[in-house]
């Protein structure tokens, strides 16, 4: 039975009609999302009036950090530690603490950059993603 071609099941309720309905539902759902997302900034602006027309700075800063890939290449891979999702505030705090304590000096002798796959999991769209060498697998 398996492997032989049978076209009857296509014309049952659970055949083409289901497939069509499924695609329709996917499109309807995502189209509504498109509409909602398009409308959202306008609705928010309406609700707020001009009271706080100026975007709150923190989100601004964060967005711009992740939103401008074309300018990013000039920036070092870790120049904005705050935007890294794996960097806990404690981590940043401790370095600040160290910095405050003054005197002495630090140099990191060597570091391993994140492997491509580790970065991949963050889905952050950072510049390191751009390096096409990710697709030319290392040979070991």
């Amino acid at each position, binding site marked *: 039975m398996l492997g032989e071609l049978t076209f009857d099941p296509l014309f049952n309720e659970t055949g083409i009609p*289901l497939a069509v309905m499924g695609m329709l539902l996917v499109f309807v*759902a995502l189209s509504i999302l498109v509409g909602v997302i398009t409308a959202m900034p306008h609705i928010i602006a309406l609700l707020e009036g001009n009271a706080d027309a100026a975007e709150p700075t923190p*989100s601004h800063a964060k967005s711009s950090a992740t*939103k401008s890939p074309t300018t990013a290449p000039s920036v070092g891979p870790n120049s904005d530690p705050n935007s890294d999702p*794996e960097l806990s505030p404690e981590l940043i705090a401790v370095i600040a603490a160290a910095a405050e304590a003054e005197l002495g000096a630090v140099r990191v002798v060597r570091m391993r950059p994140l492997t491509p796959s580790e970065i991949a*999991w963050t889905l952050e769209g950072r510049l390191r993603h751009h390096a096409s060498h990710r697709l030319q697998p290392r040979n070991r």
Partner: protein
Amino acid sequence: MNAIEFLTTKASQIFQTTAFPSLEVGNAIMIVVGLIFVYLAIAKDYEPLLLVPIGFGIIVGNIPAVEGMPLSVYDEGSVLRYLYFGVERGVYPPLIFLGIGAMTDFSTMLSNPKLILLGAAAQIGVFGTFLGALVLGFDPHEAGAIGIIGGADGPTAIFLSSRLAPQLLGAIAIAAYSYMALVPVIQPPIMKLLTTKEERLIRMPPSRTVSTRERILFPIIAFLVCTMLAPGAIVLIGMLFFGNLLKECTVTDRLAATARSGMIDIVTILLGFCVGASTSAPYFLKQESILIFVLGALAFSVATASGVLFAKFMNLFLRTKINPLLGAAGVSAVPDSARVVHMVGREADPQNFLLMHAMAPNVAGVIGSAIAAGVLWSQLAN
């Protein structure tokens, strides 16, 4: 009985207690398959976080069983069976979605919503494969579970299989992850075939800034929209957007951090290992599995083509054209297919940075596949 006879008897007795007497060709083949998975993961860097656990799990699952000892994921009372519970009952996939939600940045998608439709178009891969599986003689439940391979989303595939066709779960999961790992091999030729050089050169305008408020509202609204339309997707979609809300709402950072690190890592290890260990040769090496692999290749190809062609279709109506390569990112396989789009784009124009834009259809594809899974489940459950 002289000394030599005695030693021979003893040696043979000991040999009987090893796994060699019950080793069958099927097990050996599967062990080699497992080794290939591990090799590809390490040497080629193909989805290593999943292929290493799955590959090693395949090796473990194909060490032949010993009678009377509960060892495999299918033996009542074995340790692996307890760990496999989360696969079999579909508990792990939503937890993984929770972690994925807590690491996904939907900003690009929010700043360019029309790209979401590319993620919808790619679901033609799901329903096309579903029809293909019906034609090949699978019953509708099985066909639904096989179709979801076209969603290019491992946890979704495992979740739906566990609900509709548990007996095919291993083959479907392995097929889904195999092709996800092979996205950089499968997609480029299709993309180049279906696009002209000019189309590939199209540059996308820079995205607008998305406010914190939008990013907080989005997961809540999107959840309501998606699950009111496809309530079968509630667990996957719910966890995805719950995780995203934890990430974006600014007051639950420590929960989001754990969800996207410790929690998802633990579940990933267990899920991958158990899925691998479930491919014991007698359960896995069947005609079904081969057909499923064939259908899986079809699914990925159709999904890629649908995305690209739909982008070209949209361009008929849009003033600002979309680079049709972005359509290929509608196949979720996050973030590999987005990277493939970026790479193929750069082949045509090294100054064209498509990655950020490709993330939009990419994450939309995740949502689309979850909805597709919900529809298939709710229609086929009864």
